[in-house]
């Protein structure tokens, strides 16, 4: 068992999930509460990684973050190293790749909160940020948890983006999916089975958490959801 890869995978998924929730909550709120025409284009852009082949996304990011572009050189100057083939680069790739898995459940959850409640909060002087934190988030609690779990699992299982953008550097970019790929390449099916079982177990555990009894009880206390 490659414990180093397991730890790296969990670290990558945790960091990605934390960043994505911080980004996706205001983005989903903007998509639901905003009135501007161009929001449809923004939503399409946020959903794009869902239909884009991971290798294509990984390739674009590899080129963009590499030393041949101004963006890549600028980021390298800030971070002190190029993002391609580094853990930080993997985080950037994972955040973009998993963005729809965080945004879509939140948009559905926020949109399910009745507009009359949002109007009432506006009339009572609540700022958009307060409406999100005191109304949308508590009432769409289940969507928040779903978004977090889906993002985490999606990051744990990603392969194409990781391979294109991060390569296979032990301790830095070698995640469990890459380990599994290497084990199959080497015909080590016993080890591959063990790695696959861990990935499967993580997925089942997380999905069980979504449908757990405690969550349903929490939902009944006032949670509204799509």
């Amino acid at each position, binding site marked *: 068992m490659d414990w180093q890869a397991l730890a790296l995978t969990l670290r990558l998924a945790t960091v990605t999930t934390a960043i994505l929730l911080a980004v996706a909550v205001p983005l989903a709120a903007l998509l639901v509460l905003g*009135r501007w*025409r161009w929001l449809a284009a923004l939503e399409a852009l946020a959903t794009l990684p869902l239909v884009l082949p991971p290798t294509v996304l990984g390739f674009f990011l590899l080129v963009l973050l590499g030393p041949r572009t101004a963006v890549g050189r600028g980021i390298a100057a800030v971070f002190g190293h190029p993002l391609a083939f580094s853990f930080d680069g993997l985080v950037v790739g994972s955040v973009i790749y998993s963005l729809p898995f965080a945004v879509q459940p939140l948009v559905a959850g926020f949109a399910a909160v009745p507009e009359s409640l949002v*109007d*009432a909060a506006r009339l*009572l*002087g609540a700022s958009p940020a307060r409406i999100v934190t005191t109304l949308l988030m*508590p009432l769409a609690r289940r969507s928040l948890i779903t978004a977090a779990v889906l993002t985490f699992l999606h990051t744990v299982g990603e392969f194409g983006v990781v391979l294109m953008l991060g390569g296979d550097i032990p301790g830095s970019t070698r995640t469990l999916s890459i380990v599994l790929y290497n084990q199959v390449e080497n015909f080590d099916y016993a080890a591959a089975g063990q790695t696959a079982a861990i990935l499967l177990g993580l997925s089942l555990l997380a999905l069980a958490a979504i449908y757990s009894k405690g969550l349903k009880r929490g939902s009944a206390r006032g949670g509204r959801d799509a």
Partner: protein
Amino acid sequence: MLEFRIEARRGSFRLEVEGRFASEWTVVFGPSGAGKSTLLRLLAGLDWARADEPVRGRVTLDAIELTDTDRRLRLRPGRRQSGMVAQEPALFPHLSAAANVAYGLHGWDRARQARRIAEMLELVGATELAGRRPAELSGGQAQRVALARALARGPQLLLLDEPFSALDGAASDALLERLQAWARANGVQTVLATHDVSDALMTGAEVLLLREGRKVALGPAANVLAGERDRLLGRLELS
């Protein structure tokens, strides 16, 4: 004094109305679909920014401009010193009745907040409901709490859209009387939308009669409603 000129479109419905409410208590009267709710929502500052159905007009309260689309001025609903209660109470389901009333008192110190909550719940006859969640309230109780929540911030303009529809006649009349006394004592200009002629007669010093999104009459309740009664009787005789 509340002055307004509004042109709005909602699908095939058009609201084109202007008026000046000089009285402290005005009733907007008309049948369902006349545009009462649309007018009150716009006076409250809601729905002006809908990109699909633009609204034009101007609203001033005591000579202070709340909205003027020609000048792209649009004061946010929470900054208009107005409170609104609609037919649907829209209480926040995850908060107790007291916490619902406290929602608009953001930034107040706890002691002042607690005093205000108690005062408002007592005014609407809902003191014993403070700890209950909206799911545990009847329709009438929820409307009382929604009224307390709207009053708590001390609005200068109170907009009531059939707010006591879930209360029986006697309870509704009693609450309206208490509310009128409170509004008078606090100098709050109130606009009540109703299709109930008894509400209009009981409370209306001034009535705006709306039909199909247009102003039919604006004036003293007795005159406006007598004219409406004559019109309805005339239609009855014709049929």
